[in-house]
């Protein structure tokens, strides 16, 4: 699954990262998986939210089959 990255994460890591996710997963799993490959960004990932299908994800469990898009949302700073 290609996960979209933005802001400093996109600049430092790339626009996407390829992750292997279980058939059922939680938003936290997405961040943990990226942390394993990019431990230097743990702090920023801890502050980031996960968006699944363009909606902020809470603690619910997702079925990979229902997911078309995942993104990591670092702290936003529009305005």
């Amino acid at each position: 699954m290609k996960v979209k990255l933005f802001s400093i994460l996109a600049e430092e890591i790339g626009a996407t990262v390829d992750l292997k996710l279980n058939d059922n997963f939680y938003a936290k799993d997405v961040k943990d998986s990226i942390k394993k490959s990019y431990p230097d960004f743990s702090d920023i990932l801890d502050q980031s939210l996960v968006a699944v299908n363009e909606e902020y994800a809470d603690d619910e469990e997702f079925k990979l089959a229902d997911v078309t898009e995942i993104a990591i949302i670092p702290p936003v700073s529009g305005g």
Partner: protein
Amino acid sequence: MSLIKITDQPINTDELTKSLIHPEFGGVDIFIGNIRKFTDEIETEKIEYTTYKQMAEKEMQKLADQVLAKGMDVVMVHRVGELNLADVAVFIGVAAPHRAEAFENCQFLIDQLKKTVPIWKKEYDRDKIRWGGLGE
């Protein structure tokens, strides 16, 4: 007619303001956010905004819907790309029957936009680059 969008073009504040003038709305409140030169001692030279556009427009629409549901009109436009000093980054306008609700809802929209809409700034300051939202 509400307008919600993210654009990479300059924001035409006159045109957007005019779009909020209707006979049924006696009060229009506008917030315009510009690129500021000084934040205390930090001197900013330019800001580059990026976004997760589809999601950002959805999140902006969700906010606008809360105000539209109360019978007001809303314009929310955010610019992305490279912006220079004094450029308009964001325009929020609320037209309402009376001023109090126009003020209140305009503030609500800009405050919430800054909390939930996936837009990020990379600030090119004189001393270094700062990423918005991450502190030092």
